[in-house]
């Protein structure tokens, strides 16, 4: 049984303190445990640190690995930055969207896959590139991309 958002934040405060410098740690803890950062968690972090809810939201919105919406069991993150785009990431995105039947930013109805685009993931020389959960896939072709996501449980 998973813990409630406020409980995760409470133990994050115990582990990392409640200063501004602990905000990223708290967000990461919640994101790791729940797969996303719900509103209650943002409120709890803001209250613990003594800043506005908007400030915590501002911080987390900067990072594409943080989400405020529940996500699927697998997260596919396609790089949208310029090197990958010049190597054809738009075609990869089209292939992924058609294979999964969802748009970037959405989750399949069976919660199997969330499709996202991300800023640079440091694989510029091997683009187009994507991360599936924590595994990088490089030099993608549309067919390869379809095959990879079709095989996700």
């Amino acid at each position, binding site marked *: 049984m998973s813990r409630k958002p406020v409980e995760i934040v409470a133990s994050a405060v115990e582990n990392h303190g409640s200063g501004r410098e602990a905000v990223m740690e708290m967000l990461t803890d919640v994101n790791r445990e729940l797969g996303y950062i719900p509103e209650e968690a943002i409120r709890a972090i803001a209250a613990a640190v003594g800043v506005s809810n908007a400030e915590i*939201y501002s911080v987390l*919105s900067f990072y*594409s690995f943080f989400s405020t919406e529940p996500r699927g069991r697998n997260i596919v993150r396609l790089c949208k930055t310029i090197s990958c785009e010049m190597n054809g990431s738009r075609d990869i995105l089209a292939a992924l969207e058609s294979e999964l039947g969802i748009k970037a930013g959405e989750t399949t109805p069976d919660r199997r896959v969330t499709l996202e685009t991300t800023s640079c993931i440091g694989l510029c020389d091997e683009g187009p590139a994507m991360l599936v959960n924590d595994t990088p896939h490089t030099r993608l072709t549309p067919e390869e991309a379809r095959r990879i996501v079709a095989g996700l449980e």
Partner: protein
Amino acid sequence: MPNISVTINGVTRSVREGVTILEACETAGVEIPTLCYHPDLSLAGNCRMCLVEVEGWRTLAISCVTPVTPNMKIRTHSKKVRHARRTVLKLLLAAHNVNCPECERNKNCELQELAEKHNITINEFQTSPKPVSFEEASPGVMRDNSRCILCTRCVRTCEELQSVAVIKPVGRSKEVRISTFLDRGLNEVPCTQCGQCINRCPTGALFETSEIRQVWEAIEDPEKFVVFQTAPAVRVGIAEALGFPTDRSTGKMVAAIRGLGVDRVLDTDFTADLTIIEEGYELIDRLKRALVDGDPESVLPMTTSCSPGWIKFIEHKYPDLLPNVSSCKSPQQMFGALAKTYLAGKESVDPSKVICVSVMPCTAKKFEKERPEMRDSGFKDVDFVLTTRELASMIQEAGIDFANLRDEKYDKWMGDSTGAAVIFGATGGVMEAALRTAYEVVTGQEIPFNGLNITPVRGMEGIREASVTMPEKMARGYEFLAGATLKVAVAHGLVNADKLMDKVRAGEVDYHFIEIMACPGGCLGGGGQPIPTSPEIRQKRADAIYAEDAALHFRKSHANPEVQLLYAEFLHEPLGHRSHELLHTHYRARD
């Protein structure tokens, strides 16, 4: 700090060490264009408008954040600088919705002015104008992010001046936008609707929710009896809003409003005086209950309640301190409640036909009038609120030649004003007015300050305190206060209110009475006042307010003849049954 020598555009000058290039140039009379810079706020250095060339530097310097160093050679309009500035300006304009005629800030926009000054006629970067990207059902403050240039002045205003911090940059890179918690509407987050962000926005990304159309419709409707009330600070802002130097222009303002075709022009000052009497008696009552009766429910210090931005702030942030807030409605709402009861009777008009329009230096007043509890007259007490800027716009639309108007007087029954009411418009004014009246009520003598000018509570210091010691001989019934020292404090700008209330909550201070105004400078610096604003501008408006006070015949609220008549004929006594019904209210905690 010692002076150092720098060269600005070939002229050697002596400037204070530690100042920025921008400040050094300002002192030297050399103008540098800025956008994200604002004299009320911390430095951001993000817009790049103020770039200058420094000899020996590889890149251009951001003058607003770069301190001068000895013998620095600065060029402010070299070819390199002009090229860079034009490019910066074009890039800002390219991402901006340049549909200027449709914008609230047309002709009063810093971006537009810079584009004109720098002769930007063709912009090779210009994309097609974006549609309006943000509209919301916010009662006072509206946003249109398609006009936003991401300078973050609003963000800094909300956090540094107001301690509210509901707007922040959200997202990254080209998706960055100024937004709120989970991108909600300003009406769904703890925004106080103070509108200070509007006053500091260089473009039209923030503006008030306009009610001009509704007010014109009411004026045109022969069935309606349209009653205008004007807040104290509007009379020192309206000239400025119409493009004239700051001045008090009460008589011209009354004439201009009459010229719009309204039925009665009346004064919020009348209910400001009334507020002083109700609030003064409430304070004396609280003191008696706390000091003599030992009533634990009589909470001190009592705080003022005229500023709707402050009220919304305390409801969100210090709900446990709500019992400290005076139960008096704000002068605007007292006026509305009386306009549809007392005034309707005096004028023999059907109260359902009365339309009460307030002219306010404030955007939070637009929120306040929508509070469901503000219907004690049996109708919506105040129907519409116009900011000083909106009134100026209506005067211009009507083609009224403001400068050549003859001074006119307010209409009767609720048009009398005293100097005590006028100073409500400046920080410390409510305190001063309250002391002028309360002291006299409890001692039977005038407060012993030269010319009734209680200077310790005046000024622009963020938090000020003062004390008044009562004489040994008191008026009958108030002997319990003999020799007592009344301790008071004044705060303006919610960041200062926040500091003060933290101390109240912690029990670190022993004040009896606190005046709080949400906006820096008080109402004269309100979110509905003319744009731009700066410490100098606010000081000029304050000077005009105190000049008006000094020039008025009556300077104490209880001396207001129409207020005396109101008590004699209608209310009967301060804190009486009718007062409680019409003039007092309650508050609630907000998420």
